[in-house]
């Protein structure tokens, strides 16, 4: 079937539209973060964590269902400006997500197939998946403080997609003619989106944990104090990051296994240590190590968060470096 050029054109316009909306959201979230204050002070968090660690030693796991004070960052009435900016940011974020979703849908209609057959399309889908994961998470809790740190990687991703990775709408190479494209690649995209959000939380946790530790030790908050003062407490960040990682790890496992089933049908073996497979395996092992680290005394906390970031590093490496610079069977970047 031929390519519908006007749909392909419209898809490109929608990507630019969504990038504009993301940029505006970034501005709104910046104001929101600048004006936002957390309700529980850094000192309170630090001392609560010190007390809670006693509970952990008693054998119970910290659950944080009922923190002594609300730690969600929302500016109170005196800081209405920041709150309004956060709300505007959330609305713009949803708008941008919908525009990007539209761009992806039009791209699929233009080529009469699922629109994730090359790196450009995969990058659009990954950006969409990150935004959607953020949007869904924000339905149940106030995440206005997180918006800025989500919108930045999404904009970077889309910028790369439009400049370096751009590929005209076209049909697929024969190896991708399979319903496993819908299963394996979709699972990988969803995982990439959610792992991006989780890695962002782990990085923010490291900032907050560092600052709280300094305060608990009686030192000044340091350079990062300003940022930490606008985030939830370290233990909350860590817990949210862990929950996303734990929820996504089975799906990542499934994505790898679905890939193996597809590889068996396409290439005659279910596992062959193709560079892409190798890095998917490395990513899986690192995230497995993260889950174990969080259950190991002496590793939970900062060390575990570094392991999570390492896992995300492996994903990024697998996506950009392996796709573009290492030749293997997964050569679908569409770039020459």
């Amino acid at each position, binding site marked *: 079937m031929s390519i519908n050029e006007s749909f392909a054109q419209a898809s490109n316009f929608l990507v630019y539209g969504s990038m504009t909306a993301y940029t505006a959201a970034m501005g709104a979230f910046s104001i929101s973060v600048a004006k936002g204050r957390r309700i529980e002070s850094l000192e309170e968090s630090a001392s609560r964590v010190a007390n809670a660690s006693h509970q952990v030693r008693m054998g119970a796991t*910290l659950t944080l269902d009922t923190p002594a004070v609300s730690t969600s960052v929302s500016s109170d009435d005196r800081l209405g400006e920041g709150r309004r900016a956060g709300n505007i940011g959330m609305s713009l974020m949803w708008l941008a997500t919908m525009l990007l979703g539209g761009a992806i849908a039009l791209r699929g209609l233009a080529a009469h197939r699922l629109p994730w057959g090359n790196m450009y399309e995969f990058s659009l889908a990954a950006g969409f998946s990150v935004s959607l994961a953020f949007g869904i998470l924000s339905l149940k809790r106030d995440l206005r403080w997180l918006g800025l740190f989500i919108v930045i990687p999404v904009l970077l991703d889309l910028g790369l997609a439009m400049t370096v990775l751009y590929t005209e709408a076209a049909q697929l190479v024969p190896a991708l003619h399979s319903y496993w494209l819908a299963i394996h690649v979709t699972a990988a995209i969803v995982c990439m989106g959610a792992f991006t959000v989780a890695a962002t939380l782990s990085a923010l946790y490291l900032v907050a944990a560092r600052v709280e530790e300094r305060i608990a030790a009686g030192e000044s908050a340091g350079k990062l104090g300003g940022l930490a003062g606008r985030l939830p407490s370290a233990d909350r960040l860590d817990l949210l990051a862990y929950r996303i990682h734990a929820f996504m790890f089975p799906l990542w496992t499934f994505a790898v296994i679905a890939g193996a089933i597809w590889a068996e049908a*396409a290439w005659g073996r279910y596992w062959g240590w193709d560079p892409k497979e190798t890095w998917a395996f490395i990513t899986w092992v690192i995230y497995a190590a993260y889950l174990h680290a969080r259950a190991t005394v002496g590793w939970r906390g900062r060390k575990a968060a570094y392991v999570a970031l390492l896992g995300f590093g492996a994903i990024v490496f697998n996506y950009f470096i392996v796709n573009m610079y290492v030749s293997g069977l997964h050569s679908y970047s569409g770039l020459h």
Partner: protein
Amino acid sequence: MAKVFTATAAWLRWIWRQLTSMRTALILLFLLALASVPGSLFPQRGTSPLKVSQYLRDHPFAGPILDRLSLFDVFASPWFAAVYLLLFISLAGCVLPRTLEHAKQIVQQPPLAPKNLSRLAAYVTWTSSVSLSDALPVVQSAWKSSGWRVRSEDEWVSAEKGYSRETGNLLFHLALLVILVAVGFGGALGAKGTVIVREGSGFANNVTQYDTFTPGRLFSNDQLPPFSFTLTNFKAAYQLGGQQNGAARAFSADIKVRNTPTAPARNVTIEVNEPLRIEGTSVYLVGHGYAPQFIVRDAKGQVVWQDAAVFLPQDGNFTSTGVVKAPDTVPQLGIQGFFLPTASGDSSRGPRSMFPAPNNPQVFLSAWSGDLGLDGGIPQSVYQLDTKAMTRIGIEELKPGQTWKLPHGRGTVAFTGFKEWASFSITRDPGKGFALVAAFLAIFGLTLSLLVPRRRMWLRITKQSDGSNLFEVAGLSKTEAPGLLDEVQRLAQQVKAIAPEVPSVD
């Protein structure tokens, strides 16, 4: 002597305890990830043997050292095996005792109620006039019917749920062990081979017909099922125009296949992603190319060679190279050639095809005379000419139907047309079904182990000095799952329905 024995036993116990600790497992996981990295950065013999030989040629000093360190066979190297075997020993040493422990817990009753419930993470309390003997049995059955395992004593009820979390955890780790075993046995009992088949030619499944054949260590050749097939037609479609001009869009190979030499032939189409599954063996379409047809005659006009010669593609547009060897002429005759499916007309920069489909097929030939070197007893590639003892007698370009009169009256070469060929990978892996089932059990177990919350709940009823009863409900989560307080409040609500709160009389 006995002392030495005890000391050794103590050491062994210490080593075992270290090996099976979570800390060691963590370090081994990191090592496993780290050990995999060179496998993606250096070319590997398993996937690209040609690149390995190229690398060794390009790096005459570093290459052999890297080779000694198994860096071109990372995933078959002793050090990689050492890491994953240690990891799996560590895993087994951790999982087996935990399985016994978990089995015990399933049989046993929920634990005793702690003395001080108010110290627990989630705690609800109230006073009621309902008596202990009225409340306890009702609470017990209410909790039981909401899925809790309940133990009730004189003054308290203890309940636990979420055992499937640990069951899933153990299932996941055991499934990983099964996958490892399935991969090992599948490799040892299986075999894989590749073969190039030209249109109109056939293949019968026995070892001599393969171009390459790699049996597993425990594979015996009589395990090859006696099927055979003929390639009747190969079809390819390519993107025309645009950024991805020439990219492949569809491949298919029509074959006539017989399960046994005497069985009736049936028509099957093999495509990428659509292998032929036959008698526990799978036949995959993995590549294709062109086989130009030549008729070579000697000086007397006798046909000395007539066939379609398989040429191997060198680039995405199927600029292909190959040779024809005619050993029965004196002196012997060899022809090296390029086949271009779409020649550009301008060959000033060497013969290069412009498009993978045969829109303007052409061959560029060079003829060699001398000794082909076939009698030395050293096996020769059928795709290369050994020109050490030969001299070039001429070059020519031909379109289909054209004939080249060789210089010095050495004979003629007629380019009569071309056929397409397809390469097939034929594999047998009896372990893959087990690996697949184990993989899905692993996902199932993993999901349980990460998403099922394991919780303990207690209700204690204490008689107070004023005759009323103090009701305390408390919960403990053994995981970081959210909603413990909600759960405690829900169970407390069930109790309150039986034992309503009365204001205390202080």
